[in-house]
């Protein structure tokens, strides 16, 4: 396994400068709730403004309203957003994966209908994969879609569906036959479709992004099906590769580090500086790897194992870094602190265990890497 070294071109650097200038203007510190990476606040206005710059749906083709740009260019935008803890929650999932899934597997009609809305930052997607009894073992899912003529009847329960309460669409994976892997199919369900009940499950830090979605004889026309009947597993797996590869997997802590680095605690403590330097060095190394992965994507490759390899170690390092910051902070920070940074630190302490769960657990990723090594 080898990740070729790469650097940003001058054009790519220009994009970075542009994004920084825009965000300086649009998101001055203190004017928005700080978020932890991709778990940033849901703010449809911000998503639309960002989209107006051409920075949502960047990887979608221009004929569908997208930017027709590269994975590297998208990464450049994402890095700046994550650094600032920007409110990206509304468009995140659609931008990262649902749009591309629809582009690759959707009908022409679905593409024309959905992709422009994604690229305008108007559509928000939630991913309905997990179920109460199907987490790591996704193939054991039981929610069903049964066909009657041109109508599908959907029944079952999805759980831990991030952002479902605010999403305009839910892209769900349902069982359409008993064949373990070959019996799953994806459907696109607009919010408000009768027969769907979405209830937030309060998250450990008190937020409400996490949801349970219950389907009670929800009816969909066949036009809502994404891809072939039975092709859902493969589509979902490719989507997970997109979900794992990027910097969003290890930049959750950036808004905390960005500020911590220049606090007095660090300036006056040799011990803290040693830890900060160590964190800096390692994040610098991960950045190089993520950039190499983005280049592979742009070269038409599907670096599934490489993405898992980076995600597995980088998310654990995020947790380790947080523990260091906390130790130097010297006391337990408060979620209700008037200082937004302290509140964010408190939130991070509570949610950090999720970093090595979401998008595939550490243990599952190790299996992915391990199998990948045997195949090479």
């Amino acid at each position, binding site marked *: *396994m*080898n*990740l*070729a*070294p790469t*650097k*940003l071109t001058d054009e790519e*650097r220009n994009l*970075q400068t542009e994004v920084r200038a825009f965000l300086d203007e649009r998101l001055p510190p203190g004017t928005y709730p700080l978020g932890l990476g991709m778990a940033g606040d849901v703010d449809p206005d911000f998503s639309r403004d960002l989209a107006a710059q051409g920075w949502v749906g960047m990887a979608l083709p221009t004929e569908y309203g997208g930017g027709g740009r590269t994975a590297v260019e998208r990464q450049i935008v994402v*890095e700046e957003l994550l*650094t600032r803890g920007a409110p990206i929650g509304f468009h995140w999932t659609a931008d990262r994966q649902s749009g591309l899934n629809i582009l690759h597997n959707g009908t022409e009609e679905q593409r024309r209908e959905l992709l422009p809305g994604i690229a305008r930052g108007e559509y928000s997607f939630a991913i309905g994969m997990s179920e109460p009894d199907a987490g790591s073992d996704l193939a054991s899912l039981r929610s069903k879609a049964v066909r009657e003529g041109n109508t599908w009847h959907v029944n079952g329960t999805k759980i831990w569906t991030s952002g479902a309460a605010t999403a305009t669409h839910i892209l769900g994976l349902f069982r359409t036959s008993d064949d373990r892997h070959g019996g799953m199919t994806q459907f696109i369900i607009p919010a408000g479709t009768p027969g769907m009940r979405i209830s937030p499950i309060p998250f450990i830090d008190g937020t409400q992004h996490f949801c349970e979605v219950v389907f009670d004889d929800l009816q969909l026309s066949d036009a809502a099906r994404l891809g072939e009947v039975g092709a859902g597993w493969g589509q979902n797996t490719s989507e997970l590769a997109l979900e794992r590869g990027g910097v969003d997997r290890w930049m959750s802590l*950036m808004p905390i*580090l*960005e500020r*911590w*680095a*220049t606090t007095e605690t*660090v*300036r006056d403590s*040799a011990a*803290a*500086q*040693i*830890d*900060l*330097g*160590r964190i*800096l*060095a*390692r*994040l*610098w*190394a991960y*950045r*190089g*790897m993520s950039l*190499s992965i983005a280049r592979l994507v742009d070269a038409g490759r599907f670096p599934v194992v*490489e993405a898992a*390899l980076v995600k*597995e*170690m980088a998310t654990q390092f995020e947790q380790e870094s947080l523990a260091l910051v906390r130790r130097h902070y010297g006391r337990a920070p408060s979620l209700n602190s008037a200082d937004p940074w302290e509140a964010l630190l408190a939130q991070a302490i509570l949610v950090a265990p999720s970093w090595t769960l979401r998008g595939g657990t550490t*243990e599952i990723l*190790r*299996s992915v*890497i*391990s199998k990948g*090594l045997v195949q090479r």
Partner: protein
Amino acid sequence: MSTSDLTAALADFFSATWPPDAAAGECGPLSESPWNSFRGLDLHLVGIDEAAGGSGGTFADLMALAELAGYHAVDVPVVEATTAAWLLERAGLPIDGAASHSIPIGPTNLVVGDDGTVSGTLIDVPWGASVDLVVAVDDDGQTVLVASSDATTRPGVDLAGQPRDTLVLEDVRPRGVATGASAEQLRHRAAALRIAQTAGALQATADLTRRYAGERVQFGRPIGAFQAVQAHVVLLEQMAVMTTGLADRLAIEPELHPFDVVAAQVVSAENAVEACRAAHQAHGAIGMTREYRLHTLTRRLHTWSGDFGETIDLSARLGATASQAPSFAQMILDDTRPELAS
């Protein structure tokens, strides 16, 4: 010749001279090593212009050579000899291609007196007593070339059992003195090569462990079938891929940025230590023996992870720099590198 052509062309020589499954014995003086075959291919002068008496090739070629040397646990001073040659080139001093060279890794206190003689101590010079010449930077930043036969040598060994000698110079007539690279530049160049060498050794460690986990049977299955053992194999692959990536990143730069080298050193050294732990854990008792290959690699990794700067000092410098920088994130995302705090 591209870098990958170079390493492909050399692979046979390395495999034949340093077989990948042999366990290294203790290392003697240079005359008892394959140094002459190594030198016979002019590999000791890679990365030095032919006009200056070198054998040509880019810095990237030299990094690839160091990586290969690390993979094969080569027991000749590859990094030291090529860095010495580079120091001579930078100082405009003649390079004797027939001679063997080394550099000090530990602290030096070298002074050129008014009468032109040098005195001082060079600590931790790999193969210091058995190379012909040693190149060091003195307290005034000048490049000084001395013959090891003019020094009193105190033998030492590193953790891998390779010679690391101390040279004491008393009013010795140097073979050359000139202004060239700074001590800092010397450290960065050598550190980059050490990272490449470490990357190679980590690849070898990962390969060896993966193979062993596939062969060793306990409870009726190869131990590699157990998830807990797979985790060690995965970690080793991660450390190898990551460190190789760091070396490759340094290799493509037209010149080394201190920030990049120091950051890469910190990560590479930590990776080496983590990898040694995981490799031994996966190997069980066999890995603790001298008859098996693993120690050949892990003892080198432990040695190298402190060379040209200890992690703690390097991290402190990075942290001090970050605490003064306008943006932490931009240090990671930008190519314009901040000045490193000292």
